[in-house]
């Protein structure tokens, strides 16, 4: 320990403040969810569970949740395949342009969503692609690939190559080796990568707004639209709170699967 006692106490206080800062808005959100008034007025005037019932019975909310689940599942599946292939090629082969691939993959997440959104929308319009769930999935898969890629390539870097060579040496062809040796080695990386990709897709709103078609509202889109309608705010409170609580699931699962690995953002 090179840190003095005073430094350690100061760091402890700074940490406590930062964590409070992170949770304060979520706590306020939770309090408002039980507020009986339609308008947001502080302090709350009472306590009710009524809005939860209304949210659960709201057909638009239910449709939006289903759409979000579908879009997330499809985008994650595509991202798993593409991200794994790319990671495997980059980590296990040497070829011209190898360095550019990670750059290409990180672009959709590093460039502003509004640019990705407009670019995709303009392209879909130009080619006469019908907007719908599939266009949302295409948009989401594009930026989810990098999440899977980062997870898998980090794992591949740590996986020694000799078991693959041993497998080939023992008579297994490339496909068998991939299936029996490489894939089992990547399993947890795929799980946590897929989980985080799903969470990212479930939460995305900007690209979604640009790529959604009629009748394919996702839950973040619903919230965004509902914020603009004061009459729906109590239901927004509830839905937002539930979404915040649901985010525990991917975090908890990813932690369980990968131990400390999920500490890094995307792997």
């Amino acid at each position, binding site marked *: 320990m090179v840190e003095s006692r005073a430094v350690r106490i100061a760091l402890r206080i700074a940490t406590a403040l930062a964590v409070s800062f992170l949770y304060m808005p979520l706590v306020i959100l939770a309090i408002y969810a039980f507020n009986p008034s339609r308008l947001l007025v502080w302090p709350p005037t009472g306590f009710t569970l009524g809005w939860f019932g209304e949210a659960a019975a709201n057909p638009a909310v239910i449709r939006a949740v289903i759409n979000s689940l579908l879009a997330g599942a499809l985008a994650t599946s595509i991202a798993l395949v593409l991200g794994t292939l790319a990671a495997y090629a980059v980590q296990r082969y040497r070829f011209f342009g190898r360095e550019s691939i990670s750059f290409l993959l990180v672009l959709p997440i590093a460039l502003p969503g509004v640019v990705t959104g407009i670019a995709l929308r303009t392209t879909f319009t130009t080619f006469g692609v019908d907007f719908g769930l599939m266009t949302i999935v295409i948009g989401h898969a594009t930026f989810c690939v990098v999440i899977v890629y980062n997870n898998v390539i980090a794992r591949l870097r740590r996986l020694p190559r000799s078991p693959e060579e041993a497998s080939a040496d023992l008579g297994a062809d490339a496909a068998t080796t991939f299936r029996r040796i490489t894939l089992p080695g990547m399993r947890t990386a795929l799980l946590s990568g897929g989980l985080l990709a799903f969470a990212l897709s479930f939460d995305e709103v900007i690209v979604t707004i640009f790529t959604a078609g009629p009748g394919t509202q996702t839950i973040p889109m619903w919230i965004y639209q509902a914020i603009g309608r*004061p009459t729906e705010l109590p239901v927004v409170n509830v839905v937002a709170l539930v979404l915040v609580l649901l985010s525990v699931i991917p975090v908890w699962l990813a932690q369980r699967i990968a131990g400390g690995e999920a500490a890094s953002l995307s792997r």
Partner: protein
Amino acid sequence: MKRSTVLGMLAAVALVAAACGTGASPKPSLDMPSSIGEAEDELNLIIWAGYAERGEVDPAYDWVTPFETETGCKVNTTDMGSSAEGVQLMESGQYDGGSFSGNATDRLMASGTVAPVNVSLLSNYANVFEGLKNKAHNSKDGVAYGVPHGRGPNLLAYNTEVVTEAPTSWDPIWEGGSEYAGKISIYGYSDFIADAAIHLMETTPDLKITNPYQLNQAQFDAAVALLEAQRDNGAVYWASYSDQVSGFAAGDLVIGTTWQFQVNLLQAEGEPVEAVLPDEGSTGWSDTWMIHKDAAHPNCMYLWMNHMMSAEANGQATVWFGEAPTSPQACTYAETLSPGHCDLTHATDEAYYSKIWYWATPRADCADTDAATTCKDQAAWTEAWTSLTGS
């Protein structure tokens, strides 16, 4: 993969894109259906928020569910934030139709995005007030391009506890507004330049503004200067009506331009808010249900247009939003929901609406045939608005 291969693919994509892009023809087809066929199972609409209610907020206002039950057309709606967004959504080709204001209908008709409507197929059309039929914003060459939904002016709302005397002019939000600095609520879209122009028509006749939407350079500059002064006086722009509602409810706003809808919401929550139409007149809207020329569900759309002119649906919708019903029958129905509604909204009062400038698109040709005059187009308005609110 070689770099040249990637570039080659990109070039190919661009070429195909170009080919598809140029293929679209702006010529509208005049093939109107001669009958309404069997209803499809779905209907995709672009709407102003509040134009398709399912009783989720107030069970008494539900005109979508009955329609779905009756026709089997499942209604999907997408809100437009502004007329321009509505145009863009409509041009994506993904929607069967929508409820558009004048500054969208003119563009949609000009670009051939929407189809003419065979009104003889719509049984409720005959009841509609004559004053709403065959207007510039809903017809072309005497052919109807849609059916009316309702109309209303943009009003001046005020907090009765702060503004104790009902205003009769727009002055409090312009020159006279200094006492409300920082609490003036202004519609946050470029269309509001027209409201400045209406005020100038009254205060600066020398500018010779004849149409607040078609402004030449000098008129435009004067309007923008007026808006800048207003901004510097602490105008707060609202983009979604909930911003305005929560602002008035919180007391952050005390006066500003509004729709009857927000006033209704605020009054329902017991807030001390009233709205008036000032003497100068105002901007306003007369909204039209239009059908896309390539609508995937044309029969549902026709059924919907007819439904929205029915006494029940139109009565509910116009009360809900606070606008004028489109037929005597709808008026009668509306009165059962909200007594005095038709008088309040001046449903039959053409003189009242003569003071209302319905939203229209600013055009470089001033929307006239005089080649000598040029006006600022929509892009110029958008740009001026960005400069106004962005710097």
